[in-house]
């Protein structure tokens, strides 16, 4: 804004003067926009310079934000490379590591409990994602294309279910899980995680499926394809970006959920990573921060790797989730 007002010289740029004239005529509604004459007088070069400044300003501000946002992950990394002695010495900057060591990582990799947590997490995530995707792709195909009595209400219901947070129903679910004998069994998560993942996955799959032209499946129907064939050979390949987005969402839910495992699991052989790290590495008042941070890093690795490669699909799916339907 400030650069705009510098040195109003003679209006030498022909392309800008009519704009100034128009602005002058409509000045009643735009009184705060500066006088039309100064606007018309701005040199092309100064406009360019102004854009350049705006660009560098944006980069600088983004840089500040990136530093702020990446501070905790950076601190995690630094701490994970420190030995327990270095952490308890409490000298020098805690932000830097003086004698980097991979001992913490090595300890965790060879620590049987941590291996169990990791395996449990991987297993639960794979099962949850598969189950969720099967349920939601079938349902989305049916809701987007076939329809039945009440299918519109069901679509709306699915979206509303997505808005129910896990912390609303975890207490009755505690009783239900207990009554079917799955309390303190990692398998109860396979039953419960899909309730968190399926609604949103179904919702974005409905969006993607609806955007497929009807001519495609009509042509296939005329050629004698069954509904299953249409789904498998047309809808799933065409809506692959949506399927990837939904899969990542289901993965995120299953990998990072904290409340359900914390409430329903209590022995270490049944725990998953999120609760295992907290309950195992924190014993009373003894915090093995180096190991905790290394564990956090190892546990965050799969999501970070997946997002690094598939971020675009996920962002597209997520933003479509709020717009399509």
């Amino acid at each position, binding site marked *: *804004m400030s650069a705009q007002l510098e040195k109003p010289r003679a209006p030498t740029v022909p392309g800008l003067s009519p*704009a100034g004239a128009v*602005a002058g005529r*409509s000045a009643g509604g*735009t009184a705060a926009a500066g006088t039309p004459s100064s606007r018309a007088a701005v040199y092309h070069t100064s406009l360019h310079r102004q854009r350049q400044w705006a660009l560098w300003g*944006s980069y600088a501000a*983004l840089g500040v934000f*990136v530093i702020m*946002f*990446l501070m*905790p*992950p950076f601190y995690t990394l630094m701490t994970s490379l420190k030995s327990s002695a270095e952490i308890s010495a409490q000298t020098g900057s*805690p*932000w830097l590591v003086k004698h980097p060591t991979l001992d913490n990582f090595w300890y965790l990799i060879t620590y049987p409990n941590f291996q169990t947590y990791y395996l449990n997490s991987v297993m639960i995530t794979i099962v949850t994602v598969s189950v969720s995707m099967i349920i939601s792709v*079938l349902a989305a195909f*049916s809701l987007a294309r*076939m329809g*039945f009595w009440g299918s519109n209400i069901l679509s709306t*219901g*699915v*979206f509303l*279910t997505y*808005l129910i947070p*896990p*912390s*609303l*129903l*975890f*207490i*009755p*679910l505690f*009783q*239900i899980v207990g009554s079917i004998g799955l309390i303190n069994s990692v398998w109860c998560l396979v039953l*419960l995680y*899909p*309730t968190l993942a399926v*609604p949103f996955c179904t919702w974005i799959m409905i969006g993607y499926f609806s955007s497929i032209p009807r001519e495609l499946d009509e042509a296939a129907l005329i050629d*004698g394809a*069954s*509904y299953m064939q249409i789904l498998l050979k047309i809808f799933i390949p065409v809506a692959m970006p949506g399927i990837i987005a939904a899969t990542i969402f289901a993965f995120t839910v299953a990998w*990072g959920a*904290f*409340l359900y495992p914390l*409430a329903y699991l209590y022995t270490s052989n049944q725990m998953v990573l*999120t*609760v295992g*790290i*907290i309950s195992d590495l924190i014993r009373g008042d003894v915090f093995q921060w180096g190991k*905790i*941070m290394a564990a*956090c890093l190892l*546990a965050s690795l799969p*999501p970070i790797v997946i*997002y690094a490669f598939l*971020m675009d699909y996920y*962002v597209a799916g*997520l*933003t479509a989730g709020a*717009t399509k*339907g």
Partner: protein
Amino acid sequence: MADGTSVPVGVITTAPRAAAPRGTMKRIARQKSTIAFMLCLPLIVLICGFVIYPAFYALFLSMLNKKMTAFVGLGNFAFLLKRHTFQLVIFQSCLFAVTAVVAKALLGFVIAHLMHNIPGKHQKIWRGLLLVPWVIPLALSTLTWWWMFDPSYSAFNWILNQFGFANVPWLGVGWIARACTIVVNVWFGTPFFMIMYLAALKSVPEALYEAASIDGAGARQKLLFVTLPMMRNIIAITVLFSLIVTFADFDIVRILTAGGPQDMTHVFATYAFQVGIQSGDIPLGAADSLFMFPILAFAAFFVLRGVTQRTKDIAA
């Protein structure tokens, strides 16, 4: 098969259908909707079994006494409302959700604009960096924050000491601890707002800005009269959605403070966990959780309306 001349011998199911008289069209339609219903059945079973049934079960549970032997009506709700701790919970939940959502929305808006300013080919890497907080599982990144807030030898206190300030007991004093939980939530949630707003910004046609420029609009006017009206719907959906998630947040408060000091940072979810699971008073915990329902339903109603509206706008 698709050339239209050959008879699809291999597809047995369609052969009788093709030869069927007109009267069976109804039957086919019915068959189609039966298949459709069958495809939805797993979803319906899942939602009924693990969402709708627990919801009604929660209502039932919340009206029992602690040993779950007698029916006490609305006694648990009345008991909670009279309790000072629970009044703190209501206050803190609202403070936490409103402050965090407003901060996230503003920060996300600013960052999305900055991101929109820079050329498209650089956006990807910056966006990737800024999304990191949102990618790490919240329970794990909150552990890092906990360690950074450590009172004795912590990241933040060290920086303060370098500038000659005294140590701050981050999580030990009520209002500071409240601020800390909000900061962590803002750190985690801002990237989500950023990508939603960035997508919305990109969908505003460039021609509108050009027209505004020709009419003499400045940057501020473009923001107020072009960008904001065009983004209004997305802003509303994102804010309401985030309000739901933030209001029901559990991970941050549970790990960072577990409700302390003096129950000042408890939110509904953590208090329900402490009362219902840790202290074993399931009915009271269920009642506590259900207090969240009105505000969630309120937000959900408007989210749904916004999404439906937007779908219509796009279709039009």
